[in-house]
């Protein structure tokens, strides 16, 4: 059974002038158990909107979403129990301590009272927050609040963990910490779906990706396969002087250039090095980066 099945889902928002706008447009996607999926795309692509519909916060205008075979609208109480969600926005309680926040929130997922304290302690240790247990949640730093949000999402041991931009605004060492925990949960059998607009991060982490842009799913599948497909038969290079006369057949892809392999790799490499010579900053024929793939698919940048 698929942990998540999204079937032709659309979401229409109305702006203040009453104009309609499709934030998610006919997306279909299945997620297999035990994997790590990255839902990738620039800001405003519709990632959070899709996540919110999966989480039962927002009703789709069209299509259906199933979590472990249950409809997220009709069976929302059951589906909400099966997933853990880390929303994009950081929110904290004003009056409660870290422990209190976790104690009541896990209770709202049915974690028995006598088990809560032990689980809270273990999760806080994993997230390096144990010494903040009795601190008021609102006094935590931004990174700590983010980790508290992660803790809230995993205390009831969800089968599918959904994280919306879990590493936004979190420094590098802390990201590693969050990812180490997510990898461990995944190794223990939790399926992971996360969104990010940092493509390099996704490249390191996920086995499967889904690329979205302007509400459309533009590509999905195994990361390796997609990279294979896009790096077949071409060489990528960077130049110091971008005004230099290009070799015929070379195309510009973001900061990089691409040259399709016509005869064989060695001959074409030689052709490029002799043409550009000392102007070459880097050259490679390895797998295409996600950044590169995204640019090819959308002809646009991600740096919006």
């Amino acid at each position, binding site marked *: 059974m698929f942990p998540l099945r999204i079937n032709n889902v659309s979401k229409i928002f109305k702006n203040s002038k009453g104009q309609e706008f499709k934030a998610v447009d006919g997306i279909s996607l299945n997620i297999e158990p035990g994997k790590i999926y990255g839902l990738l795309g620039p800001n405003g692509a519709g990632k959070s909107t899709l996540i919110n519909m999966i989480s039962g916060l*927002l*009703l789709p205008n069209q299509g259906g979403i199933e979590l472990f075979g249950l409809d997220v609208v009709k069976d929302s*109480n059951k589906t909400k129990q099966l997933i853990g969600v880390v929303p994009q*926005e950081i929110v904290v309680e004003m009056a*409660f301590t870290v422990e209190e926040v976790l104690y009541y*929130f896990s*209770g*709202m997922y*049915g974690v028995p009272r006598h088990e809560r304290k032990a689980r809270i302690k273990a999760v806080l240790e994993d997230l390096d927050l144990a010494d903040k247990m009795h601190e008021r949640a609102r006094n935590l730093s931004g990174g700590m609040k983010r980790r508290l949000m992660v803790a809230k999402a995993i205390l009831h041991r969800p089968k599918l963990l959904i994280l919306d931009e879990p590493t936004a605004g979190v420094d590098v060492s802390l990201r590693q910490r969050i990812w180490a925990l997510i990898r461990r949960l995944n190794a223990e059998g939790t399926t992971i779906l996360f969104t990010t607009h940092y493509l390099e991060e996704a490249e390191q982490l996920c086995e499967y990706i889904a690329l979205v842009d302007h509400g459309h799913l533009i590509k999905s599948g195994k990361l390796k396969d997609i990279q294979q497909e896009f790096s077949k038969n071409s060489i990528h290079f960077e130049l110091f002087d971008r005004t230099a006369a290009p070799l015929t057949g070379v195309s510009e892809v973001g900061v990089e250039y691409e040259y399709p392999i016509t005869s064989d790799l060695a001959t074409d490499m030689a052709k490029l090095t002799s043409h550009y010579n000392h102007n070459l900053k880097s050259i490679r024929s390895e797998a295409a980066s996600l950044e590169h793939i995204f640019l090819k698919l959308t002809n646009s940048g991600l740096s919006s």
Partner: protein
Amino acid sequence: MYSNMWALYAREVKRFQKIWIDTVFNPIVTVGLYLGVFGVVTSGQQIGDLPYLTFVYTGLLAMLIINNSFSNPSFALVIAKNLGNIVDLQLAPIAPWRIGVAYAMAAFTRGVITLCIALLATVWFIPGLGLPEHPLYFIFALFLTGIEFGMLGVAFGFWAKNFEALTFMSTFVMQPMIFLAGVFYPVANLPSPWSTISLFNPVHHNINFFRYAFTGYSDISPIISLLVILGFSFVFFVAMQILTKKNIVLK
């Protein structure tokens, strides 16, 4: 799964326990001040067989339950909306109607705690006031009033977009309804048409029924008041359901 709902209830009870100074002293100070003033001004006056002070006192206690059970959920929810914490309610596997019930129960709990504190601190200053005349009705009155205005508070809390909206409703709807509900005088003493209009004020019936349960004195038939309370409870329950659902699952 009722345990999920009870955890939410426990959280909301914890929330007002955290501000225990307010919870404890607010009722004592409110009732104490009113009593001080009315005790001096009205000493020796009677309404029927009832000393005027007892009349006002029982009205004040009912007002206290109404105020507390109304403001507890409405403020908690408007704050949650403004801080974004409402997402906790949206994510958790608790049906919208149970979310409403959990908040209303917490509100009722606050109303009862407040009442007990005020009673313990001030009943000694009311000469001749003993245990409630009709204990069963008294429990009814307490429970129904707390839940009724708890539900109204939940509905307001979900309805109000911000504090201005909430304050507006409190100042221009709730306060006038409470003050025109016969806390300080029997509504029958009002010139018409106000005496008739007051009969349509839901709060009047809560105060009347509570006072009847406590002292045996009633402006109008207590059964009518009880029926009106049940009727409005039903209306507030429906309003609470609709507004809760609308705010938990967004369109």
